[in-house]
């Protein structure tokens, strides 16, 4: 089915996948020496909450990707970690290591991870061209600054929010305090055994407000 979709004239769908806490924090879901050195004290808040079902959901998301788009920081982490894995290491590294990767960066010039294209200059135009070339799905994982920018520019077609049952109480959130408003359609909602919930939303224009 994916091959059929690829050959059509469809625009590539842009989806973001983000792990957030109940208080909306996305920073340092995994353990991070770097984030700790930068003053964040509660890194690694998500990992203990994953179970087979939620891991399998994330595996499937990666497996259905046709290309990946990253912010520079997440790209660097992913290249170091997933990029170093041998073929057959698992669904996530196998997907990442075999599909085209794009990274939004004004500083990166020589990406070391194979099949990477750096998008510099007019990012919105570059993403527009990329999406017009083929159908399928362009996935953004993590990449907080990029995800916020894409939301602000109205470039996100679908958002996977994995809500981890924890209040972190500090750190950067997915949604800024001051930003555009948007209505969302809830496409899917489910709960995993250890308490992570998945919400899939599609942006649906401006919200309606009640008077009075």
């Amino acid at each position, binding site marked *: 089915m994916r091959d059929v979709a690829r050959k059509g004239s469809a625009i590539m769908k842009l989806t973001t996948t983000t792990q957030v806490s109940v208080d909306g924090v996305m920073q340092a879901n*995994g353990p991070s020496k770097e984030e700790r050195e930068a003053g964040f004290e509660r890194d690694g808040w998500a990992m203990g909450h994953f179970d087979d079902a939620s891991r399998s959901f994330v595996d499937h998301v990666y497996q259905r990707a046709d290309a990946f788009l990253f912010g520079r920081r997440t790209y660097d982490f992913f290249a170091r970690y997933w990029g170093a894995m041998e073929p057959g290491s698992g669904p996530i590294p196998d997907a990442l290591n075999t599909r085209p990767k794009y990274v939004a960066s004004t500083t990166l010039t020589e990406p070391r991870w194979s099949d990477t294209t750096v998008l510099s200059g007019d990012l919105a135009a570059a993403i527009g061209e990329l999406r017009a070339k083929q159908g399928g799905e362009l996935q953004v994982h993590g990449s907080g600054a990029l995800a916020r920018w894409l939301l602000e520019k109205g470039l996100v077609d679908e958002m996977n929010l994995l809500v981890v049952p924890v209040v972190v109480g500090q750190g950067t959130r997915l949604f800024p305090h001051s930003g555009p408003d948007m209505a969302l359609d809830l496409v899917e909602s489910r709960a995993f055994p250890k308490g992570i919930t998945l919400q899939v939303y599609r942006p649906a224009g401006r919200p309606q407000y009640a008077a009075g």
Partner: protein
Amino acid sequence: MKLTITMNVSVDGVMQGLGGSEEDRRGGFERGGWALPLLDTEAGNHINEVYEGADAFLFGRRTYEIFAGSWGAIAEMRVQPVGVALNETPKYVASTSLTDPQWAGTTVLTGDVAVAIRDLKAQQDGELLVPGSGVLVRWLLDNDLVDELDLLTYPVVIGQGTRLFPDSGPDAALDLVNSRATSAGITIQTYRRNGRPQYATGMAASEGRPGIQEMI
């Protein structure tokens, strides 16, 4: 008594001004009235059940006054399930300024509110429900007095306004007790406090794993 907070929030965690454009314009808030157009029968029924299950209510001063002037005072609102529950159940309000509450069945908690609430929780059974009351709820979370959180998340990003959880506050582990979605796309999650979170920090040092989104 178990202390439960019931809260309506947007996907970006905003709780301010859900009912109407003029309800709460504090801080220059311009996007009030975001919840009402999305409220469907299923979410309405859930709210009725939550209110009907309360054995007592606890309010902050501001929410108390809004509720007293509407659920307590308007005849057609008094006979609705939420109105009946509110009018027939004991009410407590945390306030240093309120002295003569007009709503029947109200007790003002003054002085050491933490002690007053702990006494209330220790002396009675059942559920002490806190509807809305943003300032009080943040204080209750800070003081570790919340047992359960009933969270209705509306499918909308507001992009401004006060959020339920402050940028800087205590951390908490939660157990997910219940989760469902309504036809209008409201998700309803019930969480129970479960102590402090466990962090995977130690693992980073030993295994040299990067801390990244999707590292699972």
